[in-house]
């Protein structure tokens, strides 16, 4: 828990949101919690960036939303992935993996060089 909290790189938040929402309809608060839990508290999502991102994704048609009751009986806005969102998630995941791989290659190379 003493690990420092990392800021998310530009553009990653959208990808993480899409991935979490893929698991099933979920409201904004739970999305933030889920990302924090799964990343073992490394990634903390600020609501200041979470909600604008959600609205942007909804507006682009990647997410759709519905007002439903939670387990506690209170109404909340539940997001789910649209077909367009699923396609987007697939392509973005691919390009993220490629990017990560490329960055790693470079980092490992420079380590070897400095030795």
């Amino acid at each position: 828990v003493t690990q420092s909290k990392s800021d998310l790189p530009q553009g990653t938040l959208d990808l993480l949101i899409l991935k979490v929402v893929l698991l099933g309809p979920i409201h904004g608060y739970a999305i933030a919690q889920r990302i924090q839990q799964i990343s073992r508290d490394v990634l903390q999502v600020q609501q200041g960036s979470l909600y604008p991102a959600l609205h942007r994704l909804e507006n682009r048609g990647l997410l759709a939303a519905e007002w439903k009751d939670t387990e506690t009986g209170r109404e909340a806005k539940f997001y789910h992935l649209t077909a367009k969102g699923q396609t987007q998630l697939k392509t973005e995941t691919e390009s993220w993996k490629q990017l990560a791989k490329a960055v790693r290659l470079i980092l490992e190379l420079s380590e070897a060089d400095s030795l």
Partner: protein
Amino acid sequence: MSSMSWWRRLAKREQMERHLDAELRFHFDGLVADNLRAGMSEPEARRSARLQFGGLEQVKEECREARGLAWLEGIFYDLRFALRSLRRDRGFTITAITILALAIGLNVTVFAVMNTMLFRGVPLAKRNDRLVYMQERYPSGVCCISYPDFEDWRAQAQSFERMAFVGEKSVSLSDGNGERPVYTPIFTMSANAFGLLGVQPLLGRDFVPADEEPGAPPVAILNYRFWENRFAKRPDIVGHIVRIDKAPATVIRSDAGGFRLSTPMETMDATGTFR
């Protein structure tokens, strides 16, 4: 991003605001509940949640922006797409534009006519709200009332303060010496017509009932434009002779500038009493 969705979004702006508020409140309450579970006191839990949450208004503004900008973008793409489609299908575009232009032109013309005839009334007339127009309908359309019919109406009608007759005919009109005749429509009218409309003469006198008597010398009133164009606004025009279908008529006045009867045509060049 279709045109439908941005239109709907505009209409549902208020609902969007309500939902945004509810959504953020839900999140805030979730933070408070978590803090309580972690063992904080109620005020402490709220204070901490507020700190975690940051500026509520700022988050809202950014959400609106996230929607608003995409909304503008949507319009932009729709427009670009529309222009591209129009460019691709030239034939369709030209046909559509031609039809629209014709339709708009026709509408403007019809409206101009209607506006003059039905809505605006007679310019310079004092009480357009008290004027009524009467016409007769024939199978071939709406046209002229015969003068004897008008005299019968005038003798028997009781619902009107006064009735005046205005007819129209095309004549050859020339200066006193018979030179430079023009073929032009003129109004023929009962002597009381200008008085009824409340239009004052610029020069000379109005028609009087005596002008209507059989055997009375024919008289004419020139409109301002004709007086200006043909007689260079001669101040001694009153008493001058013009020829209407070669028969002499004495000019008794020149009309006030800008006077037009309720006809979409250009102002008539002259007005003679009905004979």
